[in-house]
């Protein structure tokens, strides 16, 4: 008897039909706003090298509603990234004698402290201009 196996090549839409795959691609999609955010940082550094006036222009540009909306999206993406990333850390970091749950908790606490430190440092070194500019 001859064989005639049926083959169904994967379609581009494979991820639409299963919630686990949709969650996975949402996690990967956090890279898009965060990539643009990294480009914003590069631009800021470049404008800084052009002097104080150029740097001030850059700061003013970032006050535009469009950029504020973008940064709100970037914060959400980064929080989702952090949550999903730390969820997976115990699978890679296996330390005998320390449970995966403790490793996850440790990273969650470290992330809260880390973000708080950055925010604290920013508030100390960049005095807010009272909302006016």
């Amino acid at each position, binding site marked *: 008897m001859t064989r005639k196996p*049926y083959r169904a090549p*994967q379609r581009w839409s494979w991820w639409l039909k299963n919630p*686990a*795959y949709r969650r996975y691609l949402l996690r990967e999609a956090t890279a898009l706003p965060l990539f643009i955010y990294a480009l914003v940082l590069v631009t800021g550094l470049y404008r800084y090298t052009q002097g104080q006036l150029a740097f001030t222009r850059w700061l003013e540009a970032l006050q535009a509603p469009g950029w504020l909306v973008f940064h709100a999206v970037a914060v959400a993406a980064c929080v989702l990234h952090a949550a999903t990333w730390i969820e*997976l850390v115990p*699978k890679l970091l296996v330390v005998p004698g320390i449970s995966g749950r403790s490793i996850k908790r440790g990273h969650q606490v470290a992330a809260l402290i880390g973000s708080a430190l950055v925010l604290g440092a920013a508030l100390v070194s960049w005095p807010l201009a009272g909302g006016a500019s």
Partner: protein
Amino acid sequence: MSDSIAIYVARYRPGQDEAPTEQRYDVPLSTDLSVLEALNYIKDELDPTLAYRWSCRMAICGSCGVMIDGEPRLGCKTFLREFADRGELHLRALDNFPVERDLIADVERFMDHLETVKPWTVHNSERPVSEGEYRQTPAELERYQQFSQCINCGLCYAACPQFGRDDSFLGPAALTLALRYNLDSRDDGSAGRMAALNADEGVWRCTFVGYCSEVCPKDVDPAQAVNRGKVASTINYGLNLLRLARGEHDT
């Protein structure tokens, strides 16, 4: 709870069908009936032409994996009562494999990949029996025990979109067994297995979707194993760079 349930089975008869099409069977519902037992009922009472694989009925042989409502699961470990409220469920052969006939997937590719990683203890030199057994402490056993629970059912391959896109990827179970033997204190075959792990078709095709671990019926956590394999492969890559810098050969 109604007294019967509609089971839609994707049927594929080579030479007769161009592609699988669903056929409906009505099976009497009872709370302790598994999907596998329902298939046996269909075969015995309704349609003797239905083809599917099974053997042990107790989640050890790994033969009866099918897609149940789109999820890779073992037929023997899934019960009809879960679907009683909806009154129907849909079965098809495991995704990402060619369909041989009806619910039978051709898992040859998976078997090839298993063989590639030499999933057995490799010894550099055989010890005579007079020297006694290869002993292991409980701590040494603990390092790999979880990964040795794999029953080769292939559900993780049906869950893996990377294997689905390109079946040259060694895939979750084979890479898990590679780590299982590399972590075994009695084994000397680690260097040989690393060559497979280090390749693109080895651990590096994996993008940590993680669904393999969700569907594993034995809680083996293949995603953990594959990603620990990435750590091992990265260390191996660094050591190899050092060797190359000293003018030694690539391994």
